[in-house]
């Protein structure tokens, strides 16, 4: 019994693919472009093309397709919630009316669009974390934000905070998992009883977890201070990022594809 499958949280999956080896800046910008592209899609056929693109990137990243799909699991509830809101609250031609609940054709269409968009959004975004080490990701963001440093933007501090937060997600999941097991061994059960009972059953997990989190935060702060950490000024890197030809090529390819898809979408729609 495994309570959290860490892979579902978009954790980095090591592999030696082309996508893995790209510069993080290239991947961040590409993902932003892809996400923007998804939000202007209006035609079902183009949605299918986006699906094909998703498959292609998965193949290029040498990731099992199931694993990528699973990374959308945590947001499935959000997707369903959004879709149902659109189903019930969109004005238009009524298809079905039961009491005050009215389902319209436009509502169904909107629900499908928004649901798919959100789903694609998460799936494409998950490529970033699936194929990029958290450290690289933070490095990439820091470099992308570095032009704003002169206006007082704390690029390094933000990147550091993000690294730490990302770094501790798997650790805390492990920790939670361990505490849950320990309480299960003492007869606790997390999957029985009503909502209130289940929430109460989580107290024996949450309290030790909080204790551990604060301890860890303090340990980390002391360890950083002991090594004279004082932010980004004058700090050099062990592995400086370098933008290669393949990064330019990949970014170019993504831009072209997205522009083509968007234009295609407009053509089909109007």
């Amino acid at each position, binding site marked *: 019994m495994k309570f959290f499958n860490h*892979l579902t949280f978009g954790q980095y*999956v090591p592999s030696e693919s082309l996508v893995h080896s790209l510069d993080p800046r290239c991947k961040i910008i590409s993902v932003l472009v892809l996400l923007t592209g998804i939000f202007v899609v209006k035609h079902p056929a183009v949605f299918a093309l986006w699906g094909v693109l998703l498959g292609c990137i998965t193949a290029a990243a040498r990731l*099992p397709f199931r694993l990528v799909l699973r990374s959308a699991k945590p947001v499935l509830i959000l997707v369903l919630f959004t879709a149902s809101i659109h189903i019930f609250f969109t004005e238009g031609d009524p298809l079905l009316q039961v009491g005050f609940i009215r389902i319209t054709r436009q509502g169904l269409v909107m629900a499908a669009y928004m649901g798919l968009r959100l789903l694609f959004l998460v799936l494409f975004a998950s490529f970033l974390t699936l194929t990029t080490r958290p450290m690289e990701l933070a490095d990439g963001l820091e470099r992308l934000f570095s032009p704003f440093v002169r206006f007082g933007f704390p690029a390094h501090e933000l990147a550091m905070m993000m690294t730490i937060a990302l770094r501790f997600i798997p650790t805390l999941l492990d920790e939670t998992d361990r505490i849950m097991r320990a309480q*299960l*061994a003492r007869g*606790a059960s997390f999957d029985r009883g009503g909502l209130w009972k289940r929430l109460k059953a989580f107290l024996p997990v949450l309290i030790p977890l909080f*204790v*551990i989190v604060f301890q860890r935060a303090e340990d980390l702060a002391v360890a950083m201070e002991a090594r004279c950490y004082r932010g980004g000024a004058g700090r050099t890197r062990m592995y400086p990022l370098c933008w290669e030809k393949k990064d330019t090529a990949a970014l170019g390819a993504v831009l072209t594809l997205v522009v083509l898809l968007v234009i295609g979408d407009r053509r089909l729609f109007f």
Partner: protein
Amino acid sequence: MSIKAVNLGHTYHPGTPLETCALKNISFEFDRGTWFSVAGHTGSGKSTLAQHLNGLLLPMEGQVWVDGMEVKEKSRSLQEIRRKVGLVFQYPEQQLFAETVYDEIAFAPRNWGVPENEIPQRVNLAMEQAGLEKNCLKRSPFNLSGGEKRKAAIASVLSSVPDYLVLDEPTAGLDSYSRKELTSLLVRLRSEGMGILLVTHDLDIALQFSDSILVLQGGTQVVWKKPQAVLEHLQANPVPGLKLPDIAQLSAALREKGKNVPLTWQWKCLKTALFGEK
């Protein structure tokens, strides 16, 4: 009345790039009233093994039997098995949560549905067994000292009145006095008929107290024998990361130099062989 594993195997993250085989082909059996130790280096699969014995992990290959009940998914006996087999995790003090030590120790029996009027008795017994002072009852478990926290955590498992007690590195981070206290507690529990399974990397303790020892290396079974036989095996085929006790190393070195002494981990035994009875 025993815990038995037959060709037990377990793989983490099967079918993903992170797939790792944690256990393979492990077989052993130990009875109530005996002390069984699982020794191995970090990452040898000891902790994974421990969690199979009360159904926190379910066997992917082979079987585990507790008093004739098989540990498997959705088996109705799973709760019963968890009650029978108490599991003390590594650093068990990290799982403390209650407002008072009393509530902490009463957590398990309440979960098992023990009537409220019997709980004070259970708590008292568990505290006595674990060697915890009575005046701790009303205190917060977070205000106890390190050693007391460990005792409270062990008491909170003992209060289920388990038939078997599985402990994962219970002596880690304890000073030598607390360590001695803990081992003598385990010896006492064994004499009262409890089956003890100790997961450890410390051969000293394993050899000293066990009735039988299982040595793991990289998830596979190296040897499962009585302490003396295990020592002989490890002396002939060292396992990386498992250090023989100093006395055992000394006696082995003396034997190599041609001294007529037995291979042993007991100072008394070596001393007698070297200097005769007083």
